[in-house]
């Protein structure tokens, strides 16, 4: 028997693109349990399961669960306090004359 291994959070990027246009691998997330903030790419993803389970690399709490039925998907991110997503610089409008 071998220990169950996990993948890094980069593997979430493709699946999440079915739901969002954000590149998740460049996003930062805060663990709801321990407060650690880090790259979503650093999560530990268990994929030999009925769904994807992404855990905090620090405390192993579940941060993201993604279940895919043939015609539906469920995303549970209750373990993520927030996502910080890089955005294009906001254009400043010129001051009115």
């Amino acid at each position: 028997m071998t220990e169950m291994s996990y993948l890094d959070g980069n593997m979430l990027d493709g699946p999440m693109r079915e739901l969002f246009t954000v590149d998740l691998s460049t996003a930062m997330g805060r663990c709801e349990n321990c407060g650690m903030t880090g790259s979503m790419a650093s999560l530990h993803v268990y994929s030999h399961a009925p769904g994807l389970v992404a855990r905090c690399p620090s405390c192993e709490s579940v941060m993201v669960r993604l279940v895919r039925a043939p015609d539906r998907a469920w995303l549970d991110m209750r373990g993520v306090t927030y996502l910080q997503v890089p955005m294009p610089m906001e254009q400043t409008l010129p001051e009115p004359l």
Partner: protein
Amino acid sequence: MGIVSPGFSGRPRSQEPALPPGQYLTEDFPVLSAGPTPRVSLDTWEFVISAENGTEYRWSWQELMALPQETPMVDIHCVTHWSKLGTTWQGVSLDTLLDGVDTGAHFALAHSYGGYTTNLPLDDLRGGRAWVAHTFDGAPLPAEHGGPARLLVPHLYFWKSAKWVRGIRLKTMDEPGFWETAGYHDYGDPWREQRYQGD
């Protein structure tokens, strides 16, 4: 391409009548896990049934092994589409463990070392249909498959057979567990193909 790669791939839908719809036969015993494998010492292992009135019924490993043992041979069906027929186990029937537990609850929430949970109607743990199993195929249940002990409820999809089981909370209200709060069916009858909510 789907967003979840199935844990294991295999032959497509089988026509074999011994299998529930949408299942294929496997001779292996695939390992599925939603997290790191807990390593539980038999010295500290315990199984607890918590009644809805707060009363707790506890068994140490030695106490569990001193109870009458059964050796069910059962078919198991995983929601990821594999089925394994004629598996042999040894364990203690939930009928034995629930005997003497004073409860009017209709629901159960199994919980595990490592934090996993799954819910079942209490009736499904009775009637010689559920066990706390510690031996598989004549050998101690490996940690990867839920050892020291796992719940064994083979008439429901195998996610209901909680690995590393630590206890059962008896409840007056149904409380969905780990997969049941993420889209999976509340009951999970493989013969009715109750995989996802609404199936």
